């Protein structure tokens, strides 16, 4: 359990640094892939709702600490996505690589809708078509592409950690 917690904090930290730091070399059409979203959704798929929500809280907290004017907005976004992705834990299959990718796309869409409502609609910006065409679609496509690789890595780490879980029990 402790090992998992440490891995989670470190994983979140590394993915956050990667997501914000590698922008200059890896951004396509002005967007960067949402690595934290992949982490949250994969955790939900592999471990269920509670862990996904805790991961989401951490992810959002990192973003808010560096970029938010108030702390707590992004954690809510990620917690909601984590909560919903956690339902998919019931159909978890170790060999299934397709479901988490679809879940990532759905999660990213949900996240973007919430982001649009809070940061666009409530600030009087209503240009939905621009938002969808220029931000949402590129971001979903890019995140899904990256999730194909990243999910495999996360699954490997998970299976590796399963050994520790067994020895602990």
């Amino acid at each position, binding site marked *: 359990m402790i090992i998992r917690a440490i891995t989670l904090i470190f994983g979140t930290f590394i993915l956050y640094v990667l997501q*914000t730091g590698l922008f200059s070399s890896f951004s396509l059409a002005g*967007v960067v892939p949402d690595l934290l979203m992949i982490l949250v959704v994969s955790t939900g798929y592999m471990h269920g709702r*509670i862990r996904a929500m805790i991961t989401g809280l951490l992810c959002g907290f990192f973003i808010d600490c560096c970029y938010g004017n108030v702390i707590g907005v992004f954690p809510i976004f990620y917690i909601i996505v984590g*909560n919903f992705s956690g339902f998919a834990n019931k159909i978890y299959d170790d060999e299934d690589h397709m479901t988490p990718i679809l879940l990532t796309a759905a999660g990213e869409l949900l996240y973007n809708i919430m982001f649009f409502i809070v940061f666009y609609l409530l*600030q009087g910006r209503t240009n939905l078509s621009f938002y969808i065409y220029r931000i949402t679609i590129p971001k979903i496509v890019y995140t899904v592409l990256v999730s194909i690789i990243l999910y495999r890595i996360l699954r490997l780490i998970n299976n590796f950690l399963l050994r520790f879980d067994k020895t602990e029990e």
Partner: protein
Amino acid sequence: MKPKIKNKPRKKIVINPKIVFWGLTVFCVILIVVSYRFSEVFSPVKNVIGSVVAPMQKGINDLGDYFENKAEHFSNMDKLIEENRELREQIDDLKNTNQILNQEKYELSYYRELYNLDALYDQYDKVAAKVISKDPNSYSGEFIIDKGENDGILKDMNVLAGNGLVGIVTETGSNWARIRTIIDDASKVSGMFLKTSDTCIVSGDLELIDKGYINVSQISLNAQIYDNYEVVTSYISDKYLPGILVGYVSDIGVDPTKLSQQCKLTPVVDFEHIDAVLIITQLREQYDGISEVFRSDN
């Protein structure tokens, strides 16, 4: 402790996820309220996380640059040779112009003395910094640099890239600082047309910048302005130092209220590929203080 675990199989605590969900949500809402009302409470936390993240981001950024450079290195050989030739020609050209400009500089300094324009912005002290991370949510127009309070960066300092205005420092940590660019929706800069001295407001627009523009509004109806006029920061701004180039205007027209003119502005800074910036380590208030002294001296 140990025998307890051995005797009975570890009791699994079952928590209803629903409760966790609502609990965390309420926790976040409280966080939002607290951090909004008392923003100082969280500034040490932000500072610590920022200081830990900043060097790592810097490292990763360098790594990314390295790979990018390597990739370019192999693909652009021919292009580089061609470019090199062109640049050499340009250098000869520039040398020539430089000489002429140097001669004119003497004249200019003489005229400046006459006009008392002692504090022009090429004389401000500047600190160079690298952009190490951008907001993970695309199109917010904010980024973080690798210099902070330790290097003398303070809130409200002006940021340049090349010879154009990038934005302003909005938050600082010990080794990082957050910058809001002029293209951000929340940004409003008090500007001035260099040729006619008419004032205007330059406001960021993340949708328009996609086409390479931002908005300029509240220009007097009497202002005689034309395309490609330069806009610089104005003397009446309380945060921006005067005379910093912002960009060139186009698409001039009367705004919907028919009370003022509006136009579009092409910033001189390329915000998409910005990776290094200069921070002027002089605040507007200090500048005003200095110019007061100058005025009273003369």
